[in-house]
């Protein structure tokens, strides 16, 4: 089967914006309920400037990638809020926290993907995520927290392309991986 950027529509039961939003809301209320709320954007917001991106891959009939992208300046405050520790955070703590956020969202996304295989371990890069050309964006949530932008995004391979391969998960360029 030939891979193409022309992808078939996702199945009706695939992950959509509303489902992703509910997953992120549940995570936020569980672990960030003590800080000010995250405000969803009304329109897509592409983050400019330095970012950190945590991603987890999903294998199976519909390979995918789930990423959380955060402005680099917002990563440490976000990790501090998750850990409820504002001082003494190391870079490793920040990468660890972002990886866990991706892991939690990814695990819940995986439950919505038909015939999903395994959930990968989180990987961190200091760049925007790079899914394979076989994947298309299935769901996205842009939000602002304490003046910092975050993007949650899900890519899934279209069913017709599922046998063609898997979504490439780029290795880290920071040398950090959870």
């Amino acid at each position: 089967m030939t891979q193409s950027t022309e992808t078939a529509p996702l199945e009706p039961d695939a992950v959509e914006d509303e489902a992703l939003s509910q997953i992120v809301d549940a995570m936020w209320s569980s672990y960030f309920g003590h800080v000010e709320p995250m405000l969803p954007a009304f329109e897509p917001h592409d983050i400019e400037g330095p970012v950190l991106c945590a991603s987890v891959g999903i294998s199976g009939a519909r390979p995918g990638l789930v990423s959380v992208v955060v402005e680099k300046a917002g990563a440490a405050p976000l990790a501090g809020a998750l850990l409820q520790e504002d001082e003494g955070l190391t870079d490793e703590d920040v990468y660890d926290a972002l990886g866990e956020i991706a892991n939690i969202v990814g695990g819940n996304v995986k439950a919505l993907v038909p015939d999903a295989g395994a959930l990968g371990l989180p990987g961190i890069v200091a760049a925007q995520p790079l899914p394979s050309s076989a994947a298309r964006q299935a769901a996205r949530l842009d939000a602002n927290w304490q003046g910092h932008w975050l993007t949650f995004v899900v890519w899934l391979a279209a069913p017709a392309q599922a046998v063609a391969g898997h979504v490439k998960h780029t290795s880290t360029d920071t040398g950090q991986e959870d």
Partner: protein
Amino acid sequence: MKALVVDDSRVMRQIVIRTLRQAGYDWVDVVQAENGKEGFDAVASEQPDLVLSDWNMPEATGIEMLHNLRASGQDVPFGFVTSEGSEEMREKAAAAGALFLIAKPFTPEAFAEALKPVLG
């Protein structure tokens, strides 16, 4: 009473321990391990009364640790704390001998409900 928390994420181990306290189990001693291999060894060395383990971890996964524990005759009460809470995962966990599976994101109430039969 002692609980072993196994997760490759230090952040998540801290959250699990914090939630354990919030669920009312502040009297439980906690020891930690970073993966299923270390967790297996820690069960032997620490003799915990309960294991709370992540599923996806390097070296050895949580389900591999559980299989190895049962194969070695170790029947320590075992529960998963994982981001994957599908029915399929719950069935796999139960078939391997896990008492419960707490899905992330979780609440202190979910911990209290799952842990009450084990820790009282």
